[in-house]
């Protein structure tokens, strides 16, 4: 079979996301949510927090809070404390403020701060062209994040259909997508890339490593994510961040999600297959 016929033989394989939810939620670990965020005595608080290898879980009298920006989705809390934690299949885990990644008691961060961040971002990205160009920089990833970013152009996600393209030049870039823990050696190259981008520009921290340093931080060579180096607009947790999470984060950062979906925040979009 010649290649052109092969290319047509499967018909349309591309997801309809974000217009429709995608069914690929089966068994998928999008994020961890709290089932029972109530607080406990000191002993219980220490026991629950100690489960997490990255310090993502914080417990006090007010309740349990889980910082998805630190979570590497190892599943230990879910396995050991199913009474308190469960996996959420939704890949829509991105947030516009660092605080909005914290779930559990008190809800997802400070609502007014989030609204402010959203409004400011919306004002800035209004001037962006209809098609958007992304510059990717790896600041010390484990290599898996690049696969997930690259997956966005495969036929199953095909972000070109949404007018999203990757560019090699920072001068043509609207969005800087950064993967990795933010190594000391990448501080300068990151800043140079950011400075070469025209305004308005959006910065997306892709993955738990880029958000907080994940399990790799702290070492003598790492920053705790890239937030200290760049003005991050969108945080996308994940270890690595899945393609749907990245896509959701990109659309969120560009103001391309309608309000209903934005408001939905972390609720499930994964339906039955």
């Amino acid at each position, binding site marked *: *079979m010649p*290649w*052109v016929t092969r*290319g047509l033989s*499967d018909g349309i*394989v591309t997801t309809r996301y974000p217009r429709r939810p995608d069914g*690929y939620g*089966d*068994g*998928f*670990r999008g994020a961890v949510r709290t089932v029972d965020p109530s607080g406990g005595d000191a002993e219980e608080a220490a026991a629950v927090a100690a489960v997490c*290898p990255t310090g993502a879980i914080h417990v006090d009298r007010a309740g349990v809070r889980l910082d998805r920006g630190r979570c590497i*989705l*190892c*599943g230990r809390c879910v396995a*050991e404390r199913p009474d308190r934690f469960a*996996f959420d299949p939704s890949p829509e885990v991105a947030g516009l403020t660092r605080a909005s990644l914290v779930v559990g008691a008190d809800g997802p961060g400070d609502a007014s701060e989030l609204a402010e961040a959203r409004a400011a971002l919306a004002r800035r990205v209004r001037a962006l062209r209809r098609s958007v160009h992304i510059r*990717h920089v*790896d*600041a*010390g*990833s*484990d*290599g*898996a*994040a*690049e*696969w*997930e*970013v*690259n*997956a966005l152009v*495969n*036929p*199953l*996600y095909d972000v070109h259909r949404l007018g999203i393209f*990757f560019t*090699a030049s920072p001068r043509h870039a609207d969005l800087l997508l950064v993967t*990795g*823990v933010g*190594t*000391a*050696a*990448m501080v*300068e*190259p990151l800043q140079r*890339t950011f400075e070469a981008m025209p305004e308005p520009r959006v910065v997306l921290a892709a993955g738990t*490593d880029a958000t907080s340093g*994940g*399990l*790799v931080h702290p*070492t*003598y*060579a*790492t*920053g705790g994510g890239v937030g200290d180096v760049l003005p991050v607009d969108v945080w996308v947790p994940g*270890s*690595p961040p*899945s*393609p749907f999470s990245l896509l959701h984060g990109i659309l969120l950062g560009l103001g391309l999600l309608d309000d209903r979906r934005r408001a939905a925040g972390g609720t499930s979009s994964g339906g039955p297959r």
Partner: protein
Amino acid sequence: MSDAQAHAVGTGDTDPGRSAVPTTSSGPGPTSASAQVVVAATDLAATVADQVEAGGRFAGLVATARPDGATTLQALLVRAKDVAVISAALPPGAEHYPSLTPTVPAADWYEREVHDLFGIVADGHPGLDPLVLPLPHGTVRPRPGGPGGPGRVLHPDTAPLPAEVAGEGLFTIPYGPVRSGVFETIEYLVETFGEDIPSLRTRVHYKHRGIDCRFGALGLDDAVLLAERVEGTASVAHAAAFSCAIEQLAGVTVPRPAQLLRVAHAELERIVNHLDSMVRHCEGAGQAVANARLSTHKERLLQLRSRLCGHRFGRGVVVPGGVSGPPSWPVDTTLSDLERLERAVRSDVGALMVTPSFLDRLRKTGPLPPQVVAEHGAVGPVGRGSGLAADVRADRPANPYRTLGFEVAVARDGDALARQHVRVTEVRQSFHLVRQALDELGEELPALRARPGTSQHAAAGHGPGHEWWTPAVPGDGIAVGAVEAPQGELLYLVEVAGGRLARVKPRCASFHNLALFPAAFQGDIFTDFVFIEASFGLSPAGAAG
């Protein structure tokens, strides 16, 4: 073990002066495969050279800081039946030892790494230029293994690679660290007179994360999670190699159902990595349809893995002593999904391998001189594409591969096409292995399900003899875990002292093979670059540490 020891003694016999070297087996359990030899630092180079002469393959040099300020140098030698660790101690304050590189050139990069991390100088090394951590002169060094590490961020000297070659008509072209396109960060410097290539050099320090020191700060349970993130595209291999070392030190054998599930995940990992390499070849060769189709298959396989365990990269599956639990998706459904994918992959890869414009682009591209490959002891598809039949799956029989039926894929030409041929064969084999493993698992599952406590957590407190997991409490000692990662042989040197992880050193194929990268540039550098890089299939994360 007895064969291996006979081998070591036989080596010593050729030089009576060294035959007195004490040879001890770590021998903590049935799966143990490391022998240990202690020599004086001044004898390290000669001992390693003897071992290489006797047929051993030099596979790395690791340094470990001791609490008292001393440093241990540990050379890894892969022999017919085991991995020997040849150790030499440097007393506190000693910063020199005779270099291995003049007699064993493969030691070059390792001695540079040791210099970067410890400040220890290999006397006689041809050029200890920074590789993974270019620190300004006189800076404190991280010294992994030592107490605590530097405790603050060390700021590397980020000056670009200096030009080495001088002359008229010289062009210096820096690639990276930030690449054009979605790539991992790496630095290349090409120095060329027109289209000739006098030199290509590479450094990986931009991505250096200080992984070695981080391992020292983690407990056993967390360390396996870090291993999964050393080289994120080979998470399963890393978790397995680390676990393999721990299991040796604990003297436990992984229950067969867990072994089978590990094989299924490891081989799925190999398939997606090999597909990734092929996709990048297609991209470079302008094979748009093949590119789209193979990346679709790759994505579907990642989704299948995610159904099987909840994670697209298989993280969380392998734990020391076994696996974290049974597959989270019905085995029969997985098998039928897999069959469909296998058919599609086979058909598209088959078509690609008879597409003349694709084959022409790879043939004679990035050829590695056979003597260079042999001398370096290249691993993985890079070595096998040049006729080196090394594959941990065949060389270490203490795993289920033998019973599942497996043959090492080898090609001889040493070019990008030969490496592609190796991957094509391995993809076919890997599908077969996954099917075999899942078939057997599927037959056993009903019986396993019927028994209580079939997950690690349910088993807590139930003691050993468990189907998916057996408690693996390591005794003190040193062990080398070995696994064939998609990139090639992956070794984990693990030292446990006082029940703590005193040293964990992943020896990634990406590091070992990357040193050969410049040797592959013999044609037109600009048009060949993408194919050489894709055909090496390495991960800068694994190389940078």
